[in-house]
């Protein structure tokens, strides 16, 4: 169990700057993110795309912005819990208890949801029948490649993950690669390699096909694929792998009893608190009249939410507004003289 002043959900720019503001006013926080790296959409969707509307920064990429924010909060030594996702929320003695998928438990008077448009999760097969085998023989990521040895594996997708795994697994497994069109978006060298392996009949390549059904009783046995024209083929398969990139989903937060307006959480613009006391929402995930989905708005929202958290984290102290240029207390917190 980890006790803290604030749990921040989401390590995108908004969550990071909120953490900075918490550090400045002397509060502790723990930051949880479903991705394996810090930066949120800035890192996952557009690390190389230039951003032109960060105040006082004429141009920077998503990656540069993230690195600068990490640098900015370094003095506070906050903990990151990556590759983990907040799951259950409950309350006890005026405190929120947040449990994660990996079994961590946080106790805190405040939770700040800075979750963007939701957590990034693998896009799954549209076929209902695939759900039955989800996690056992229908997989969207590979943790242990040895399970595929001497098995038939059907891989769907046209990007680097699909191509790299098709090449890798073709050494020890019977691999079929299925893609909805005959162009691939993977690295040219991988595409070339796939074509070679296909010509040597090491890989069975099916382009302009997509999944129709998976079949099997206790174990997966076959996968049925169909062409645009409706022609279908049956492939033997012990495992079916899908690599269709990531989608963003609100996930378990939707079950927390918060008011929702479409996929966003309405907040009070004085402190960005939701309909639940001590639960705040900032950045793309919050909504209010006039809301702009800009990073700069997320920074503002994070600064106000941090002050909102102070009240519950230090009920017996009076919050004091100070400037970083003038306050010795803040300079101590930042470790500067």
């Amino acid at each position, binding site marked *: 169990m980890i006790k803290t002043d604030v749990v921040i959900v989401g390590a995108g720019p908004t969550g990071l700057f909120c953490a900075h503001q918490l550090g400045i006013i002397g509060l502790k926080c723990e930051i949880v993110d479903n991705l394996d790296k810090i930066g949120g959409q800035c890192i996952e*969707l557009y690390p190389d795309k230039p951003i032109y509307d960060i105040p006082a920064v004429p141009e920077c990429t998503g990656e540069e912005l993230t690195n600068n924010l990490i640098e900015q909060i370094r003095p506070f030594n906050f903990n990151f819990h990556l590759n983990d996702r907040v799951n259950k929320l409950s309350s006890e003695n005026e405190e929120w208890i947040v449990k994660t998928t990996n079994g961590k438990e946080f106790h805190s008077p405040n939770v700040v949801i800075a979750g963007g448009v*939701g957590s990034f999760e693998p896009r799954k097969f*549209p076929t209902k029948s695939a759900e039955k085998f989800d996690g056992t023989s229908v997989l969207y990521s590979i943790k242990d490649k040895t399970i595929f040895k001497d098995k038939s594996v059907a891989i769907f997708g046209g990007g680097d993950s699909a191509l790299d795994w098709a090449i890798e697994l073709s050494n020890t497994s019977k691999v079929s690669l299925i893609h909805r069109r005959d*162009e691939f*978006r993977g690295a040219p060298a991988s595409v070339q390699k796939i074509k070679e392996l296909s010509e040597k009949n090491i890989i069975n390549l099916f382009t302009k096909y997509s999944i129709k059904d998976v079949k099997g009783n206790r174990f997966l046995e076959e996968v049925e694929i169909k062409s645009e024209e409706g022609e279908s083929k049956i492939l033997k398969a012990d495992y079916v792998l899908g690599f*269709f*990139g990531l*989608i*963003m989903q609100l996930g378990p937060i939707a079950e927390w009893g918060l008011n929702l307006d479409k996929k966003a959480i309405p907040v009070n613009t004085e402190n960005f608190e939701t309909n639940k006391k001590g639960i705040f929402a900032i950045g793309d995930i919050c909504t209010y009249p006039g809301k702009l*989905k800009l990073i700069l708005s997320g920074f503002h929202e994070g600064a106000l939410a941090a002050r909102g958290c102070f009240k519950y984290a230090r009920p017996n102290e009076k919050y004091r507004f100070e400037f970083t240029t003038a306050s010795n207390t803040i300079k101590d917190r930042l470790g500067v003289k």
Partner: protein
Amino acid sequence: MAKIKYIEHNGKEHEIELLNGFSVMEGAIQNDIPGIDADCGGGMSCATCHVYVKEDWYDKLPKKEMGEDDMLDQAYQPKKNSRLSCQLIVSDQLDGLVVYMPEKQV
């Protein structure tokens, strides 16, 4: 200016007039037409504004730019007539365009 018709997966139709320069995605968002999520806001970085273009319209539209098909690979049930609506920019030539929303975006 162009009249664009959006047809939800359940068959419900919405017809709006859009000024040139706006995207078909923006038309849906601004008019609260359900069925288009547009999570990334038009950056061609997600695939949640995916639509099927009415067959006879597909060849009349400006061709896909680099990257659009790559994102469509990641859409929910892409077909031959799939497009990202954020990449369909309204002009007079698009007057009468009909797009169908997929069953879901994610």
